[in-house]
């Protein structure tokens, strides 16, 4: 039995001792311990170093609100979880935990030197101290701060565990299995509701876990909890989730729950997920999330061995641990009185009990005195002693002038503080319910709900066990009625008989702000090392809103989200500002309530399953021919086909030459395809696209340009009329879905009278482009007698036929400037057809090419790529496409906007070509352009490079750019300022190759 463990009592299993290590030292605890309780049982109070000042820190609480006792728990190299609250880590055999943020050791930490320089680290130090000289920030200050400040370190290996995700529905979801939550679950289940009850601890009971005196319906609290839980578990309509934190309240009663399945096990069974993320949609929600005790603010209130009164009671009653033997208790409310009695009864000596409140003649004080406890009212702690554990406190009476009188020192090994309980309204606030400030309790409580939700028990300011039970039962009955649509029977109160001896915590009856005691190192936010002085400084420097004070001082911004600091900070700021608390405001509560692992959000969506992959029907053909792929959206597209260890540059140069001299073969299947069909198809196309479609004959195609109604280019593509009432529309690869969505929008909501139907056919067709002077020679023998001569199938002609028996829609189109065909066949035939074409073309020098070559070839011809040469702010005229606009059309999407004066200005950015004076220089895409050399920053930027390549065909680099008034600058020299110096460029036509288009019409 360790020195601080009681011989009996508590909810631990003394027959199951567990060995564990902390910072490499071995200790023993029991099943039922947390890491915190087991360390306390071994007399270990020093658990870590603080964030900013590296001050020694211990265990302050017994729950999820713990700001200080953060540890790393390590199973192996990959299973190493930082920043866990020791108060929530369940002990198991062989548990291996480490302290954080210390060097070289926990007990001796050189970073604590930071405290000697703490004058340099006031509120807002990020914004002030380190701003000068600027050059030192990156080299000196930031690396230093990053090394010394901070929390634990993430493991470097991939997470080997599995994480499950599950959806669930229920009538009533109850968060919290304390007295109110259990009563609510019992009542809701009794009325036939499907209930989910979740609780973050391993044991149900909430505050009852630390209460062995209460009697409920004649049972001890433990008997009542066990009986109620057994009843609930036996009910098939009830699901109980232990070790499950409700971390986020999302709209329409969707609750995010994080269930920890294996962290408490010494040897988790293989295959069992480590965590399960629940998304529960509930008809009604009951929040029974309890209340969180607040610390007192006094100089040196952060030393190890200083903890909350309720936490000490929890360790005593639930874990049978005495956290200290010579105890000072300081309180601003009544709840600490029973803590003092309990500790005294368990063998500790209360060496001093002080009540901060001004009355010195409380009956409760007199009652303590009768137990031999030295106690008094109207006293304060004005300082503490001890390095790695508290060894004593200084107490005094503060007179009207603020001076300390009757100061004396007391030796102790434990200080308990009690600043009153604050309702845990995090989830309520997340649900966008409105909080109301309760002047009596001096806390925020739930006001008007935004969701189908109700709070019950301590989380809405209900104090006392009997009232909490009744409140929970009422909420359970009301929620069940609301969910099931039955008559509200909540008025018929279920009766609980609760022993009057059960304690009834009372509200603060001093102004909460006055519990704060000024002095050095009076911490408000323990995790972010924010002191009263920091708050004072923020107020002195003019910050008025708590939102600003919070950001300036970083109070409440740590991983604990200010569960033990927000209210103290708020009250103090309100007092300093001379304003009422509600006027200063309350900061927003955000999810998650406690940190949730990224892995549980990711679930199965990792590695190969992270994103779906789209492969074309000819993917394997490209793999066989050595393609290097690139991701284009979800598609895998062949980028180039290197041979004999070619790099990309060499491969692209070879592929380009092959297309220009012989023929290339290219998988264009990813192009978006939409079938526009119906009697009004032509009218619909006329309204959507800028082009005139009425005169387009069946068997002909046209380059179409699509705008948004703001007049800017949205998409482009070849559109074929395959029948009088049928268009085959192609879109960009990336635009396929959004173009269809835009078309559907107009069709359904603006022109619902048109008889036209839209169908995505992207995945119906495999598309193989044959581009190059030999394209016809290769194709002609394969198309089963179809005449594809220049006369029969001219440029932009479209014909249906078969290719070796496979149905085919054949386009004569070119995105390269060469004679070209695009063979469309049913997707399932794509692999067969590309193999046949490739084999037939080999003797003509047919060469597979990828997207990179496609880009170079189209740029040589000045063809734009939507999204690369356009950016959502260019008109058709800006990119030289005004010729496509059907001039006689009364209306089309974007027409009216093009008539706005700003769309006509001559200094709009226009697409031009650029040639570098040095033909070997390839400009960087995105590089900015200026019109005079030698400018100093800030320069006058007149445009930027949109596309840039080395052209093997032309023997020099080429580029496209959008430049203000660009077409009027033909022949001018402009400059591209780069880190290595200015690059002179000459403005030219964006069509670099075969400007007359002679090569197309062969």
């Amino acid at each position, binding site marked *: 039995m360790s020195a601080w463990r009681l011989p009996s009592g508590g909810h631990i299993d003394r027959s199951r001792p567990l060995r564990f290590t902390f910072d490499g030292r071995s200790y023993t605890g029991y099943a039922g311990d947390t890491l915190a309780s087991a360390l306390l049982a071994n007399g270990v109070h020093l658990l870590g170093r603080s964030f900013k000042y590296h001050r020694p820190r211990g265990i302050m609480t017994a729950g999820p609100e713990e700001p200080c006792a953060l540890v790393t728990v390590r199973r192996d190299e990959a299973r190493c979880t930082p920043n866990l609250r020791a108060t929530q880590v369940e002990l198991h055999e062989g548990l291996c935990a480490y302290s954080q943020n210390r060097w070289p050791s926990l007990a001796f930490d050189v970073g604590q030197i930071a405290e000697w320089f703490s004058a340099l680290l006031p509120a807002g130090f990020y914004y002030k101290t380190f701003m000068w000289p600027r050059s030192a920030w990156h080299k000196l200050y930031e690396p230093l701060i990053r090394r010394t400040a901070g929390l634990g370190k993430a493991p470097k290996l991939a997470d080997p565990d599995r994480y499950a995700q599950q959806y669930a529905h229920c009538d009533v979801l109850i968060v919290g299995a304390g007295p109110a939550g259990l009563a609510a679950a019992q009542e809701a289940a009794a009325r036939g509701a499907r209930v989910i009850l979740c609780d973050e601890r391993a044991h149900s009971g909430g505050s009852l876990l630390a209460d062995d005196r209460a009697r409920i319906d004649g049972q001890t609290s433990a008997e009542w909890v066990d009986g109620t839980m057994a009843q609930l578990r036996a009910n098939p309509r009830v699901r109980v989730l232990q070790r499950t934190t409700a971390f986020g309240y*999302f*709209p*329409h009663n*969707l609750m995010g729950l994080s269930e920890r399945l294996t962290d408490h096990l010494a040897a988790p069974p293989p295959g069992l997920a480590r965590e399960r993320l629940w*998304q529960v*949609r509930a008809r009604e929600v009951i929040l029974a999330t309890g209340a969180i005790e607040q610390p007192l603010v006094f100089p040196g209130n952060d030393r190890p061995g200083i903890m909350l009164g309720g936490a000490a009671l929890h360790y005593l009653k639930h874990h049978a641990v005495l956290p200290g033997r010579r105890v000072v208790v300081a309180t601003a409310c009544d709840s600490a009185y029973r803590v003092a009695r309990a500790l005294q009864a368990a063998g500790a000596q209360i060496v001093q009990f002080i009540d901060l409140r001004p009355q010195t003649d409380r009956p409760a004080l007199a009652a303590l005195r009768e137990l031999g406890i030295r106690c008094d009212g109207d006293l304060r702690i004005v300082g503490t002693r001890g390095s790695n554990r508290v060894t004593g406190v200084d107490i005094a009476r503060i007179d009207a002038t603020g001076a300390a009188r009757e100061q004396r020192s007391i030796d102790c090994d434990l200080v308990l503080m009690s600043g009153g309980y604050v309702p845990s309204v995090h989830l309520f606030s997340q649900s*966008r319910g409105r909080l109301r400030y309760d002047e009596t309790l001096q806390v925020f409580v739930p006001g008007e709900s*935004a*969701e189908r939700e109700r709070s019950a028990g301590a989380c809405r300011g209900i104090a006392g066990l009997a009232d909490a039970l009744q409140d929970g039962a009422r909420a359970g009955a009301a929620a069940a009625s609301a969910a099931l649509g039955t008559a509200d029977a909540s008025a018929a109160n279920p009766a609980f008989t609760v022993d009057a001896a059960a304690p009834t915590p009372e509200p603060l009856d001093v102004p909460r702000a006055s519990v704060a005691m000024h002095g050095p190192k009076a911490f408000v936010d323990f995790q972010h090392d924010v002191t009263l002085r920091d708050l004072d400084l923020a107020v002195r420097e003019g910050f008025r809103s708590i939102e600003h004070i919070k950001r300036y001082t970083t109070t409440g911004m740590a991983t604990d989200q200010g569960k033990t600091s927000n209210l103290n900070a708020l009250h103090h700021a309100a007092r300093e500002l001379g304003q009422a608390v509600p006027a200063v405001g309350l900061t927003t509560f955000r999810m998650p309530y406690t940190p949730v692992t990224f892995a549980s959000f990711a679930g199965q969506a990792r590695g190969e399953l992270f994103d779906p992959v789209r492969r074309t029907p000819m993917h394997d053909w490209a793999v066989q021919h050595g393609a290097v792929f690139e991701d284009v959206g979800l598609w895998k597209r062949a980028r180039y086909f290197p041979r004999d260890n070619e790099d990309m540059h060499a491969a692209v140069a070879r592929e380009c030459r092959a297309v220009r001299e012989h023929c290339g073969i290219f998988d264009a299947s990813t192009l978006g395809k939409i079938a526009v069909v119906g009697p009004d198809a032509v009218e619909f196309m006329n309204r959507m696209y800028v082009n005139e479609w009425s005169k387009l004959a069946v068997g002909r195609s046209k380059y179409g340009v699509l705008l948004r*109604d*703001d007049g800017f280019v949205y998409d482009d593509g070849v559109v074929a009329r395959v029948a009088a009432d049928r268009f085959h529309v192609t879109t960009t690869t990336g635009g396929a879905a959004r173009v269809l*969505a835009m078309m*559907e*929008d107009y069709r*359904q*909501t*603006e022109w*619902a009278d048109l008889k036209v139907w839209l169908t995505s056919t992207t995945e119906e067709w495999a598309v193989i482009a044959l581009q190059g002077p030999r394209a016809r020679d290769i194709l002609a023998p394969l198309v089963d007698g179809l005449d594809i001569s220049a006369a029969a199938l001219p440029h932009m002609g479209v014909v249906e036929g078969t290719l070796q028996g496979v149905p085919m829609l054949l386009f004569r189109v070119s995105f390269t400037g060469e004679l070209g065909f695009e063979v469309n066949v049913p997707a399932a035939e794509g692999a067969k057809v590309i193999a046949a074409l490739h084999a037939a073309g080999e003797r003509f020098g047919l060469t597979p090419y990828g997207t990179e070559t496609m880009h170079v070839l189209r740029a040589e011809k000045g063809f734009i790529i939507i999204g690369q040469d356009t950016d959502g702010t260019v008109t058709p005229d800006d990119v030289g496409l005004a010729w496509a606009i059907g001039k006689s059309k*009364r*209306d089309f999407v974007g*027409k*009216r*906007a093009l*008539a*706005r*004066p700003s769309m006509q200005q001559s200094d709009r950015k226009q697409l031009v070509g650029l040639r570098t004076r040095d033909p070997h220089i390839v400009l960087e895409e995105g590089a900015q352009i200026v019109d005079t050399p030698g400018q100093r920053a800030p320069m006058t930027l007149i445009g930027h490079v949109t596309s840039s390549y080395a052209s093997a065909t032309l023997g020099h680099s080429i580029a496209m750019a959008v430049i203000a008034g660009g077409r009027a600058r033909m022949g001018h020299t402009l400059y591209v300022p780069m880190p290595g110096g200015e690059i002179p460029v000459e403005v030219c036509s964006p069509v670099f190759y075969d400007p007359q288009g002679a090569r197309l019409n062969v």
Partner: protein
Amino acid sequence: MLLIHCPHCGTRPELEFSYGGEAHIARPADPSQVSDDDWASYLYLRSNTKGVHAERWRHVRGCGRFFNALRDTTTDRILVTYKAGEKPPGEAR
């Protein structure tokens, strides 16, 4: 994640829908007769309501149809959904 009632299919999670901005902004029948300012308003000006907002949704991963909803932007509560082309319920009141 919102629960949205598609007037054609029933109640489905938000994942199946795409948002379509403010509802009841009709494209002028003859844009050429609209002034520059009015066209700019049609394109860009929206009410940015705090409170009950009429807005468009599309059941894009379901029936594919557009419909309208009245949603309270302060609570995300959806009061009612109705088919495209219909007046917001309660308009007659």
